[in-house]
Every structure is written in C-alpha cells, then in structure tokens.
C-alpha cells in the first residue's frame, strides 16, 4: 500500500474551487453573446481607464475650450463640439469613467445591503426574517425613479448622494434571490454538522452560506450594473446629478438644455447615448451568459 502525503482540507477546498471555476468559465466561453459582451465591456473599461492618457483632462475645462459653439465634426474635433466649444469625443471618453464608477459603486453598495439582508433574513429567520422580507418586497414594488427623484430632491446633488440613492432603489432585487439560496443551503447536511460542532451564526453565515450565495450574487450584479448606469444617466439628464462632474447623463443634460436638438447637433447627442447603450448592452449580454452558466437549461438559448 502506497502512502500519500496528507493534503490539507484548505488545499482541497481551493483545488475544488479552481476546478469549478474552470468549469464555469468553459460553460461561459461556449456562449457567443457572453463572449461578445465581455469583449465589448473590456474595451470600454480599458478606454475609460486610459482616458487620462488618451486625452488630457484639460479638454473638459469650460474656460479652456477652443472649438466653435456646437460645431459639427471636423478633423480637429472628430465628434464635434458642445455649446462651449469642448470636444464631444473628450467629454464622452471622460464621461465613461464617471458613469462606470457610479454604476459599479452603487451596485456594490446595493449588493452589500441586499446580500446582508438576504442572508440574515434566511438564516436567522423568525420575526426579523419576516419583517426584512416584507420591507424588501415593499422596496421592490415602489417605482425606482420616483423614489430616486424624491430622495435626491431633498438630499441634494452630489456623487455620494447619487450612489446612495441608486443603491437604495436597487438593493431589494438581490434580497429575495439571496434569501432563497440561503434557505436552500441551510437545509444541507453539512450546515447541520457545523451547527452540531458548535459553529456560531457568524461562522455559518460567512464560511458556509456566503460562498454558496456569491456566484448567484455575481450573476445578479452583472444585471444590476446596467440598470444602475441607466438610472444614473436618467437622473443626471433630469438635472439631479452632481453638477461638477462629467457623466454621460450630464452631457446629455447640457445638450438638451442648450438646444442641441433644435440645433440638429446630432454629434452632441449621439455619442453619449450610444455609449450608454453599448455599456448596458455589454453588461446584459454578460449577465445573460452568466445566468445560463448557473442555470444550464438556458444554455441552448445563446449563440
């Protein structure tokens, strides 16, 4: 009989996780829409990150603008200029950073709240669980834009309030999902064993429930980011965004309040909106592909 070096449980755990990750990646890769979405997303993120390298931030300065007023595209300004003479290309490129940051941060906060409420509600149950669920359902029913506008109207306009408000209207979507998954995990035998061995609530929730819930949360997050970006752009367009920052929504806000539509300034209107569309589309494609990874029944649907 050969003797084998004992492998630690941690090493086993990580080996298993790597394997399942590889499997998930293979399943994801097999879907065309998912890959297209990923590539699109990657491109946009890279462009956003490299914005300072590509175009100097001074291009956003109102005082240093040199282009004509809402001038159509030219060699010098490939996407034309806005009402103060800034390059629309520069605006759109830099706008990506903020739109993405706000969208991602808001989603992160929403996921944090939603997952916490979902896991605790499912695990602890009882009065708290019931109330948490009802509150979450209540949040979900309310029209998100209405609540967001109402909150921003009284809280004032800044990047942090925008992020907070978007998170407030988005968190409840995750909760039910997470709670359902928590209940499923709860019923599994190894959790019973953990409890018998004296594992406290915190340990159970973080070491056992959370790892099983996170993949689902990831898939749901991928679909939450686009709605956060859309919401941010709508709020900014309505004039409720941070006035000192450039996001795609704020560009369009300035465009419409300065008569871009009546001036037929399509170069001013098209790029920021298309950018939003592409980012949202990319996230949705990735999100659908991710959903199919976790729900094999959907896999045949993709390309």
């Amino acid at each position: 009989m050969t003797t084998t070096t004992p492998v630690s449980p941690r090493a086993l755990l990580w080996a298993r996780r790597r394997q399942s990750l590889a499997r998930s990646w293979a399943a994801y890769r097999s879907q065309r829409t998912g890959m297209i979405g990923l590539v699109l997303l990657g491109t946009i993120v890279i462009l956003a990150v490299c914005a300072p390298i590509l175009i100097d931030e001074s291009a956003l300065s109102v005082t240093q603008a040199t282009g004509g007023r809402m001038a159509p595209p030219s060699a010098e300004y490939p996407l034309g200029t806005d009402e103060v003479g800034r390059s629309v290309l520069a605006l759109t490129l830099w706008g990506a950073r903020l739109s993405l940051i706000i969208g991602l941060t808001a989603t992160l906060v929403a996921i944090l709240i939603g997952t916490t409420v979902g896991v605790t509600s499912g695990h602890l149950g009882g009065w708290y669980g019931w109330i948490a669920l009802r509150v979450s359902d209540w949040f979900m029913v309310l029209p998100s834009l209405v609540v967001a506008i109402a909150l921003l109207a009284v809280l004032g306009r800044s990047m942090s309030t925008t992020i907070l408000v978007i998170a407030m209207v988005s968190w409840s979507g995750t909760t039910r999902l997470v709670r359902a998954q928590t209940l499923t995990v709860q019923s599994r035998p190894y959790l019973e064993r953990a409890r018998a061995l004296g594992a406290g609530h915190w340990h159970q929730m973080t070491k056992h429930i959370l790892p099983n819930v996170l993949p689902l949360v990831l898939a749901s997050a991928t679909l939450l980011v686009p709605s956060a970006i859309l919401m941010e752009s709508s709020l900014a367009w309505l004039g409720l965004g941070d006035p000192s920052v450039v996001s795609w929504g704020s560009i369009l806000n300035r465009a419409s309040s300065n008569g871009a539509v009546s001036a037929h300034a399509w170069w001013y209107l098209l790029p920021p909106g298309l950018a939003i569309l592409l980012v949202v589309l990319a996230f949705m494609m990735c999100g659908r592909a991710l959903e199919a990874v976790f729900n094999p029944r959907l896999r045949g649907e993709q390309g």
Partner: protein
Amino acid sequence: MTDSSSPVDGASIEAPSAGRPGGRVSSGFGRYLLKHVGGAAVSLLLVLFSSFFIFRLIAGDPIDQLTKERPVSPEQRAAMRAELGLDQPLWQQFIDYITGTLTMDLGESFQYRRPIFDLIVERLPATLLLSGTGMVLAVLLGFWIGTRSGWKQGSRYDKGHVATGLLLYSAPTFWLGMIVILVFARYMGLFPVNGMRSPSTPPDFWSQSVDIGYHLVLPVLTYTAVVYAGYLMIMRSSILDEIGSDYLTTARAKGLRDDEVRDKHAVPNALLPTVTLVFLALGSVVNGSIVTEAVFSWPGLGRLFVQSIFYPDRPVLQALFVLFSSSTILAVLCAEILYWFIDPRIRRS
C-alpha cells in the same frame, strides 16, 4: 413555506394556502382577500410614513423655502408656521398628514399656489393617454412577437427579435426620445417637436382630437419602443414553458395546424401567468412615463413631478410620490386578486 406571499417578481408568486376543500371557494377567497388587502394597506401606510419622513423630516423647514424671495418678520413666519401646521408636535403633524391625504386634501403647491388635488386632476388625463396608449401597444406588440418568438425558439425570427428588444431596452428612454425628436420632428418635420397641442388648432372636438393624436405619435413611439421588450420576454418565456407539454401533442394529433395549436392551445395556457406579471411591471411603466413626459414636454403628472424638483415644490413632490407609489402597490394587489382566479384552475389538480 409559510412566509410572505406578496408576489413582487413573477418567479416568486406563491400559491394561496393549501387545504381548501374543493367546492367552498368563497370563504377561502375571503381570507385570501383580507390578507392581501391588509398587506396592501400596511404598504400604503408605509408609503405615507416614508413620504412624511422624506419631505418633512429630511427636507427640513419649508418656511425658509417659501420665504426665500422676500424678507419676512418673525411674526409673519410664526403665522405661516401655524397656517401650515408646523407648530404642532411631530406626531400630530403625521396624523394630520394622513387624514389629509385620505380625504384628498393634498395641500397647496408652492409654485402654483393652487390645491394640488386640482393640479393632479388637470394633468391625469394626459398621463393616462400617453401611458395607457403606450402600455396597450407595448403589451400587444410584445405578446404578439413574444408568442411567435418562443414558439420558434432559436429561429432567425426569434434571435432577431430578442436582439432588437435587448437593444432597445438598453437605450436610455430620454435619449431615445431626443433622437426620435431629432429625426422625425426636426429633420423630417413629420411630427411636432413636443407638447400635447398646438395653440393654433381650431377648437372643435375633431380638430382637437386629431391635433392631440398627432402630438401623441412620437411620445408613444418612444415609450412603446423601450417598454415592449419586457413584455416580449415575459410572453416568450411563458410560451417556452408550454412547449414540451403533452396537451399540445394531443392537439397536433387531432389534425390542427401548427399556428392553430399555438394560438388555440399554447397561448391561453401561457397567458395566464403572464397577465399577473403585467400588473407587477407597473413600476417600470411609471418610471418610463415620467421620463417620456419630460422629454416631450407632455403636460402630464410626470412632467409636473419633474418640474417640481427644482423649485423645489415640496408639497407637489410629496403628493405625487404618494400617488405614484400607491398606484404600484394597488397594481400588485390587483395581480394578487387576479392570481386567485387564475391559479386554482390549473394548480389544484
């Protein structure tokens, strides 16, 4: 599984409690109704509480805002406070607020100095016209395409329509509106740029109606384009759920054509869960109508809401917040009631 049965997303609608004897439907329904009406009442109360919380507590003293344009003496301020009931203790203000809302006394607009109730009544028809038309069209279009898409899953028709729907769904509504205005109103001059009426129209009913209809085209087009995709996907997935079913094989065996099998057998079965989902999607309808009215300057409640933001006309914001939120809560209640009539027929077997 005995916890909350408030169906908020389609996937989590829970069937009414089991154990109902076959014939005695009415008592079961009574209990079901009571439970869900009670739930809705609590939700509505929560809405009132949060609107109070947001617009009185967070927002701060409205007197400053009301008097920002002119200097006022302390006595006048005190008088104004008394008039608005702000000198009362907080809980008293809350009670007054609730009773006021329930009796349709929604206060006065800061901006217009008119009862908010009147403002709402004036603008409600415009909103209903736009949202109603848009929603009906979106539902019809979405269901029509969704049915055929799901039936022929994976075909070019299906892939094309799902892709188109996804694309339109990804576009920000306000942006789409602006582009639509740019192309159809500015460039092509086919439709009016914004608003609901042209001032130069003759006052007779027919001319007025045509004028309004003419103005309605672009907003409804925009609204429907963004919203229909959701209904498409709902119907498509409902049809997909029916596709492998045995009763469809029976129908085919009887000699029905493929489209007859789809329309006479699959669609009625698929429609049942779908209808409740339509009610549950009212939140996005409200969101969409606010933005659409803003883009097209359509004189409805959504536009009023947006206009009130910057004044800021707090009473109006508050009243509309309550109105919009309540409508979605009531829509969910309708879905739950509808579900009672639909569900037992299928599930009780």
